[in-house]
């Protein structure tokens, strides 16, 4: 049945995304609902929460943040970028991605109008988005029911619908841009850039008075006009209709252009916008440093993702250093009325330090988590290279398998060191600029101390890739990361035995911002890393490639 039409086949392709993204994003919405209950124990705490939220008013409208639904709406304001990732990728991939792979040629060779094929694919993407919206709505309703929210099922479903509509707009932008690009990557990149612009445009009216007319140019503005989880505010049907119209116009224009252009080609741009004609070039990049060895090539491959991850990790650390002092007083008052939150911060930060220091330490514990996530993405590339046959020709040259593996690992190691050093410099600079006193040794320990953890997860990934295929390897590493995080930060609350807590790599990271680096712990992590890497290398040297 699922293979009986283009629509159903495309929808079938989206089935994992519908469940994964729908449930994942649903949990993103539910998680602040779980947290806010702890913060709303006294009227004073409510006021502090509203006051604290007002500090972040540039990010999202502060509407009834002392309610379950209001707080969740406020918190996910910043997560719109995350939620838009799937439609952004799906929109850029829907037609252009299939053209890249050549599969659209086969599909269009069938006796079926091109317009219909495009419309069926578009309908499948929209159906997937609405299914995700439904899941998110249901989970939001479940969260509200569990944690005492005052919104009903209809409100929650409207919330999901509003999210689906903004996602359809973003997907439409990506689909339209992909008609003008030769590959799907640039279409996704341009859409991500535009999304950032939309987010900033929406923020303008919250920061600059009388500038609402500027924000009206952003679809995010119309998304934010609806707050169905806040019953006193409700959904703005007009704004939702604007989003629907935008999605229809953008997607319609994309499909119209697709039906008229060459398959595999792009919509012709006006002459003044076109790049100069390329001439046949037979030159060789003789001086390119990144082609001199497996290590150099691996470094070249990792450079761009490492840049973005550095920006994210160092940016997060710097932002935390900057804001922690600004919200010191409010944070203290707020947390003093919430024993559960204090415990959580103690688990993540420290049991004996001041709340501010503990809060900063707790936030810094997220840094190795981010670095390890970066390492997981790079292990995924290693594993995919073997699975897709890209190692075959490299291993046909006189290069030892061991050096090929170590070259890749060393490049990843270099990137993790650079990310950590830049994070150290950025946070030290931010601390100096804001006058926050941080022990330089401890700050160095907190930032550089994440290197062994990044290398540990990478080494485990390299070891597992000796047996597992790419998806299974990445899935396993993500699962390990999630379990470690759970054991370290929720485990103490659940009174897990010390032996269990020691199974998590975060246990050995400790609280370096407060207590410096524990040398024996670091050496232990390094030893396990070396062991995993050695076993992984041994396996790689002896295994059948690509089997």
């Amino acid at each position, binding site marked *: 049945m699922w293979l009986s039409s283009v629509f159903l086949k495309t929808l079938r392709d989206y089935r994992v995304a519908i469940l994964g993204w729908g449930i994942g994003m649903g949990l993103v919405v539910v998680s602040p609902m779980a947290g806010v209950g702890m913060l709303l124990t006294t009227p004073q705490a409510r006021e502090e929460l509203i006051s604290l939220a007002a500090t972040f008013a540039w990010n999202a409208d502060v509407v009834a943040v002392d309610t379950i639904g209001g707080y969740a709406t406020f918190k996910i304001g910043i997560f719109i970028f995350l939620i838009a990732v799937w439609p952004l990728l799906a929109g850029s991939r829907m037609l252009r991605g299939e053209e*890249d792979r050549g599969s659209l040629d086969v599909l269009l060779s069938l006796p079926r109008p091109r317009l219909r094929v495009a419309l069926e694919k578009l309908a499948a993407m929209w159906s997937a988005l609405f299914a995700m919206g439904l899941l998110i709505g249901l989970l939001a309703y479940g969260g509200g029911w569990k944690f005492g929210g005052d919104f009903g099922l209809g409100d929650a479903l409207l919330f999901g619908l509003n999210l689906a509509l903004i996602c359809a707009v973003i997907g439409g932008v990506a689909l339209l841009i992909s008609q003008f690009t*030769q*590959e799907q990557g640039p279409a996704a990149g341009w859409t991500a850039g535009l999304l950032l612009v939309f987010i900033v445009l929406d923020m303008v009216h919250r920061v600059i008075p009388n500038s609402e007319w500027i924000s009206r140019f952003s679809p995010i503005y119309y998304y934010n006009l609806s707050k169905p989880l806040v019953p006193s505010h409700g959904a703005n049907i007009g704004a939702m209709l604007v989003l629907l119209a935008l999605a229809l116009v953008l997607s319609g224009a994309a499909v119209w252009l697709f039906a008229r252009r060459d398959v595999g080609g792009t919509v012709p741009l006006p002459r003044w916008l076109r790049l100069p004609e*390329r001439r*046949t*070039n*037979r*030159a*060789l*990049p*003789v001086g*390119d440093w990144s*082609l*001199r*060895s*497996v290590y150099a*090539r691996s470094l070249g*491959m990792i450079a761009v993702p490492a840049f973005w991850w550095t920006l994210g990790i160092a940016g997060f650390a710097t932002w935390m250093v900057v804001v922690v002092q600004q919200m010191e007083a409010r944070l203290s008052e707020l947390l003093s009325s919430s024993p559960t939150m204090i415990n959580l911060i103690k688990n993540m930060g420290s049991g004996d330090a001041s709340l501010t220091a503990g809060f900063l330490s707790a936030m810094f514990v997220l840094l190795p988590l981010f670095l390890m996530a970066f390492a997981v993405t790079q292990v995924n590339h290693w594993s995919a290279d073997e699975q*897709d*046959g*890209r190692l*075959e*020709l*490299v*291993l*046909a*040259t*006189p*290069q*030892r398998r061991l050096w090929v593996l170590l070259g890749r690992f060393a490049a990843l190691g270099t990137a993790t060191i650079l990310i950590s050093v830049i994070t150290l410099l950025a946070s030290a600079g931010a601390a100096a600029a804001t006058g926050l006193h941080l022990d330089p040794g401890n700050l160095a320990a907190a930032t550089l101390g994440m290197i062994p953890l990044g290398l540990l997860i990478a080494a485990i990934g390299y070891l597992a890739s000796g047996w597992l295929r790419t998806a299974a390897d990445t899935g396993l590493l993500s699962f390990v990361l999630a379990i470690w995080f759970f054991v370290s930060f929720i485990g103490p609350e659940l009174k897990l035995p010390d032996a269990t807590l020691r199974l998590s790599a975060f246990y050995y990271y400790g609280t370096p911002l407060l207590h410096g680096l524990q040398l024996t712990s670091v050496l232990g992590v390094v030893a396990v890393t070396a062991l995993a890497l050695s076993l992984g290398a041994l396996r790689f040297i*002896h*295994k*059948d*490639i*690509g*089997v």
Partner: protein
Amino acid sequence: MAAIIEVERLTKNYGDKRGIAEVSFQVEEGEVFGFLGPNGAGKTTTIRVLMALLRADAGSARIAGLDCWKQSLEIKRLIGYIPGEPALDPNLTGGQILEYFAHLRGGVDQSYLKQLIQRFDLDTSRKFRQYSTGNKRKVVLIQAFMHRPRLLILDEPTSGLDPLNQQEFDRMIKEARDEGRTVFLSSHILSEVEKICTRVGIIRDGSLVRIGDVAEVKAIKRYEITITFATAIPAETFKTLDGVVEVETLNDGHGVRLAMQGPADSVIKAAAHYPVVSLTSYEPSLEDIFLRYYEADDARDKEAHDVA
């Protein structure tokens, strides 16, 4: 001449799936050896064992007297390789790929590399992902030839090449042979092997079934002629003619399909006695040829087994 490739009772299995079983052959230095077989016969498995990408379960494979697994590094200095399904970094340009592999090989003669690029008329500034299938194949061909290897191991190297570039490839193989280098080439196209190889090995269902001179291939090569007539004709006319192996009657006697081996002269002359509407000649796939050629062997084996 000494053997440069020596394969002895080589066996490789993929769990339950069949790989190759007890394959043995030798390739002499300086010859162009064709490794022929239908898809899935075990050609790529044999080649990947030679390239130390797979580890043999039993038997031995040696190149230039060196063990293919234990001394693979030394062997790879001697070899230029084209895999059956080449995959390269899609984000690198053709030029970057060639430079990268030149470095991994410890450097190559840049002027010779430029010559090869010129010969294949390759635009080196495009990303690999942007190349057509034929241009991707050119990049892979150039990287295999650019260090003037002593032995070329080529797994179906011409698939995707246009006729002009196939001719260029044939010339390069001849040049390699003239320079005394060895070529081990796998293919499932009979005419290609017939054209450029001096000796062939035929592999089927993971076992080497025949090895010998290229004339052996010609012996099993068949083609088909389909003739349509304006009137019904007696099919017996063709049965006894030279070169005709099988005759099948079509369209109530208005046509015949002939399985041929050798010249078609007598068939053409016989057909000329009747009003011919159309005549088409067709070279069947290797799978079809093998199926017909070896089904007789299988039937004989079965018969012998039943009698025993």
